[in-house]
């Protein structure tokens, strides 16, 4: 099977895809984009979060064939040439990264949240990130990171 789609603004054409492959597998193993992680491959952990046509999804639950012609945005596409995305920077500054396996998924989910809601309450943050498991941090510093990113985006008017 051949798949054509746009990933982080770049058109990708991939041949010889076995139809059972997930978008996650294709990103990680065929496109050299391992940023989306594979902690469960059952839609339970959010570590594989990406955007498809602007919608936040778990890439492990999407069959590769479903993204024909779609625009896909992964964590690899967030940072600028010289600067991290403010959400990425906030995760670093808040100490929200330990092992980092949950981090790409959480960052993608946080970007999604702040796009929709520039000034979320703690409860809104919790609800938005409820599908992203982290085993290391206990989430306190992840909440800090989201608050910090929201405040900085607010200041720069990017939100």
């Amino acid at each position: 099977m051949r798949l054509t789609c746009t990933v982080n603004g770049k058109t990708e054409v991939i041949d010889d895809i076995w139809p059972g492959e997930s978008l996650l597998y294709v990103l990680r193993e065929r496109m050299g984009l391992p940023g989306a992680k594979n902690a469960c491959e059952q839609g339970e952990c959010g570590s594989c979060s990406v955007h498809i046509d602007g919608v936040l999804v778990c890439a492990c639950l999407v069959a590769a064939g479903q993204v024909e012609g779609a625009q896909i945005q992964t964590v690899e596409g967030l940072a600028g040439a010289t600067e991290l995305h403010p959400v990425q920077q906030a995760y670093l500054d808040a100490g929200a990264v330990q092992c980092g396996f949950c981090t790409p998924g959480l960052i993608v989910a946080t970007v999604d949240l702040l796009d929709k809601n520039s000034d979320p309450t703690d409860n809104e943050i919790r609800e938005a990130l409820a599908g992203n498991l982290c085993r290391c941090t206990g989430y306190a510093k992840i909440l800090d990171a989201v608050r910090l990113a929201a405040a900085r985006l607010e200041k720069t008017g990017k939100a």
Partner: protein
Amino acid sequence: MSNSTLPTKQRDHISTPVSAGLGESVARPDGTLKVTGDFAFSSDLWAEGMLWASTLRSPHPHARIKSINIAPALKINGVSAVLTHDDVPGAKLYGLEIIDQPVLAFDTIRFHGEAIAIVAADHPETAKRAAQAIIVEYEILEPVIDPDFAISGKAPVIHTGGNITRHVPILFGPQDLTADVVVKGEYEVGMQDQAPLGPESGLAIPAEDGGIDLYLSTQWLHVDRGQLATVLGLPPEKVRLTLAGVGGAFGAREDLSMQAHVSLLAMRTGKPVKIVYSREESFFGHVHRHPGKLRYEHGVTKEGKLVYVKATIVLDGGAYASSSPAVCANAACFAVGPYEVESATINSYVAYTNNPPCGAMRGFGAVQTAFAYESQMDKIAEVLGMDPIDLRLKNAMSRNSLMPTGQPIDSAAPVAEILEKLRAMPLPPLTSTTEGFDIIELPGGASNATHGEGVRRGIGYALGVKNVGFSEGFDDYSTAKVSLQIINGEPVVEVHTAAAEVGQGLVTLKGQIARTELGVQRVVVHVSDTQVGSAGSTSASRQSYVTGGAVMTACKAVRDEILLFAMEKLGHLHPHLLHFRATYLLVDGEIRDGNGTLVSSLADLVQDRIFECTREYRHRPTTPIDPITGQGLPHTQFAFAGHRAVVDVDIETGLVKVIEMATVQDVGKALNPQAIEGQIEGGTAQGLGLAILEEIQVVNGKVKNPSFTDYLIPTVLDMPPVRSIILEYADEHAPYGLRGVGEAPTISSTPAIVSAIRAATGLALTRVPVRPEHITSTM
């Protein structure tokens, strides 16, 4: 089917250009790669022409293997190799403390999920299907599932030598004491999983010299190497390991899982082989926290002074020993908790059964006993009509107190202060009284389970204690190689150890130590591998202490060599310095004399030389414990923490919402406060998981919930804010006065939450995790 496209970026050296030294919240040097998605975890690796591995595992907990037919698997297009125990060239058994676990099962299956055969193929799906195509004929046997029965002498024997993997008795003080009040209790702890988010994974590349290069996740490269060399029939120097990015560990990566399998396949096929466990396989592929039954009897005076503690602890070690012997000893040593007692009679057993193997998990034996002794303390307080904090204060250990092993605590033990500080912290308001509260703040959250009618608040306290570092006379050391050279006019320090960074932040600390000791800004932390001596395990909260100590020692050695060189080269300019045997100092990258006068910049002095030193660091030696009395000096350092939990319980649905966790912990010296808070918050979360969510359900030897759908770890909705106070009472025996941080916060979290649920409901609650039906069925 061929794998196409780009090789994954291999992580090379990690460097932080500008940053700070000890005591500051320094950013992780690997942080940028981790937030951009470029950090190469062991599951992200790629090599030209690589194959994928898959494992066939037993569906039965106990069976005899009558035959294995691999022919159907070999026939599948794309399959390169199918291996069984017959293909293991070296030792067919391995193990951390007792060599009892087959690399691939032969003759007997001893637990559900035991590996039988492995496959390499050109696509992970092909490998998986081929593994399923292997035909195994079993003679199904009755599993031994109850550890009490297993050690009763009446059960079938699981390993020659009997079903008692270890028995640790401790007889402390007079053994014939009586007391005014006797309080008994029986407690049970379910099987918890470490559930690190990163699956077991790695890449094995066969080398031209007949050896193998491995890139994988582990907690101790050298102990993996030793076991692998034996299994693969190779000299250790031909087994070269490099640590890939590790997605958390918590004890799950102490034992071999995929390491030998992926190596065998690479050596057989002559090609690189990658393996990545699915979440389900991860649940089968690593050991778990020991479930346990703990029977306690406390004798107390009317005034609340502990007189004696008697405890019989039976841990279920499952099918293979793993680190069970050490866990068993830890359970015994910490059976009383951070309390002084005149007499203790402890019998700790760990049993072989046909349940999943259990071994290391954060807290390592001290978690199970803490649930029991803290439940007992609450029960005693209730019987005596005493405040549970006052009861604990009355018995709290302090410096010079004796552990039940007879070992005196020869550094700070601020147990009373921890309690006082916990008690003094402000309490959160009642949820239903807060302005505009949200339904998700109530038990059951967004599922709309209650509007607050049946909700009761409870507050509970608990303390915990655990050792830091390996125990019982183990030669516990780490190695660091540190070099200094001038690159582009600037001094650059390289730090190289074999210590496993698993997320905790050792990689940051190593740089902080080098900057502090050598006064140099630019530090490159070399990726951890077996090209340098062993660092010991990333477990027992020990790496900051032992590898931190090794880096400190190697840095000091480099500094001494540089200063000696400076004296030789420049000392004649300052004859009086030599005369008084005074020395130069290395300050902020400059050589200065005793008066602080600049002698030379490092760059001018060092020029094109490389100063390099490799040093080992050992903590103070410990001793074995006496096999009859349990007396000895088994530990080098103790970590103390306490928690206060505030919970809301809906007594109609049995749902629990933890509202806040407060915690106080002595860390000796906070070398990176932000990282320490991260350990405390994360450890608290894992304790919360054991209290109310997490249990591997094993029914008749079979694991029922090997997925994140059915095994629930705390989400951001489950985890409340954590209020923490960090105490810094320097341990005079430890580098920089530090005290290991990683495990203590997990220990007291669980009993504090259960205590709070008891306070809310009035129920006894003698088992964790507490399930809604434990609350509703008895209300």
